[in-house]
């Protein structure tokens, strides 16, 4: 069963087409990396899948529910960690998680239990009592992902989860993301080749709003006759997105 089903998805902003006739399926439990340079249309795609933006044309379904006509059903099943850190700055890590758990309708006792579980899952114990505004970029990003996880979503969208992090924090985040694999469907956007290579089951390459290739790395390498994702990406980009 596909957790995400995208058919002819298009988003235009005036004259500019941010996403152009995108077709993509993501099976349940898979981690798919949406790879592309800045402005490729990755974030716009995530926004449409999260019901934060209405498609100009086409349709997208999450867990069988239409993002266009059943946004409430979709929102109950997804978690989003936006590109910018989206936390309540004056609340502690624990309070941020408790708040999000209650937003997803959990009773207080259950929300407290879920927050504690998520703190352990995400390794946030040492900063649980710290206010979000005092955290480093890496910890904030980890909290942001934890907030997206607390509603136990079937699908989670991680929009550039390691953007702006130093190399150690990035590797640490990779470990966290890897630990989520298999628990839920994960759609990760990134413009770091090594990140997509290290984490994803399949890689979807976007160029100028179009999906130019999708598959496991080995398949993309075979298709382009190049070795390594960076070489594959360059080959696809030089091909003008026609492949």
């Amino acid at each position, binding site marked *: 069963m596909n957790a995400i089903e995208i058919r002819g998805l298009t988003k235009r902003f005036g004259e500019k087409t941010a996403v152009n006739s995108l077709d993509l399926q993501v099976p349940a439990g898979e981690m798919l990396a949406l790879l592309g340079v800045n402005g490729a249309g990755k974030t716009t795609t995530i926004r449409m899948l*999260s*019901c*934060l*933006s*209405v498609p100009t044309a086409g349709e997208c379904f999450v867990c069988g529910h239409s993002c266009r006509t059943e946004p*409430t059903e979709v*929102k*109950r099943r*997804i978690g*989003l*960690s*936006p*590109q*910018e*850190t*989206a*936390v*309540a*700055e*004056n*609340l502690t890590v624990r*309070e941020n998680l*408790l*708040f*999000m758990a*209650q*937003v*997803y*309708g*959990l*009773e207080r006792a259950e929300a407290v239990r879920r927050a504690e579980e998520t703190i352990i899952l995400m390794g946030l114990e040492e900063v649980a009592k710290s*206010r979000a505004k005092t955290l480093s970029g890496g910890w904030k990003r980890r909290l*942001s992902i934890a*907030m*997206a996880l607390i*509603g136990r979503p079937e699908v989670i969208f991680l929009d550039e989860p390691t953007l702006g992090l130093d190399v150690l924090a990035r590797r640490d985040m990779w470990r966290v993301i890897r630990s989520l694999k298999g628990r839920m469907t994960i759609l990760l956007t990134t413009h770091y080749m090594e990140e997509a290579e290290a984490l994803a089951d399949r890689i979807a390459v976007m160029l100028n709003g179009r999906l130019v290739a999708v598959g496991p790395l080995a398949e993309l390498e075979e298709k382009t006759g190049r070795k390594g994702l960076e070489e594959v990406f360059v080959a696809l980009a030089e091909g003008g997105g026609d492949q």
Partner: protein
Amino acid sequence: MMRRIGAFAQRNAQEILRDALSYIFCLGFPLVMLVIMTLVDQSIPPEAGMTIFRIDNLSGGIAIFGQMFVMLFTAISVARDRSGAFLLRLFSSPMTPMDFILGYMLPMLVIALLQAGLLLVFSLGVSLLTGTALSLGGVLLSVLPLTPSAVFFIGLGLLFGTLCNDKAAPGLCSIIISLGAFLGSIWFDAQTTGGVLLDISRCLPFLYCTASVRAAMQLRLTWEALWLPLLIVTCSAALTALLAAVAFRWRMRAELA
């Protein structure tokens, strides 16, 4: 729905109550003004016949002045949330526009009423120290007009926070605070000035906010003194809250387009 509203309201209250500036502006500044203006009142000779700074007039005006800062912090809170990705995250959650509107307004109403309570208790203390009569019944009754006036200012804050960005909202609120204090007859008696200034004051709700609280404080329970201004303030509060709710829904839809 109630759980979501409660969670969001608690979060908003925590954000405000953990900011030292909230205490300085919403409580400290009005209290300092109360003390300074009481000292000014003590310096005015009785034969001048100027009673605007007498505690039974002053405390009502100060309570309304304090609520204007609640407006400021409501606007800052909403505009700041909008400027970052925090609201974006919540827009992708099951929260509805009504959850957001009530979640912003309810904690601010509680904060405004707590602020009014503290200012009134302090005013009672000042009245005992200065030997000026301030009726306990009047102090208690003044909570009645202070409730719709709080809704009015919180509605304005939500409206400005929704329509302006986090840089413009505080500036606009500062202008409203200055104008509201001036046209609301907080620091002088608008009735004695007359002319165009009084006409403008009568066209805006600020004057009626102050007038209704002062009337309640002084137990002047006539239609003209208390009930008519209270009716105007209540209608203004309902209209402002409705406008703010419509604006927030419109903004939310625009951002999700």
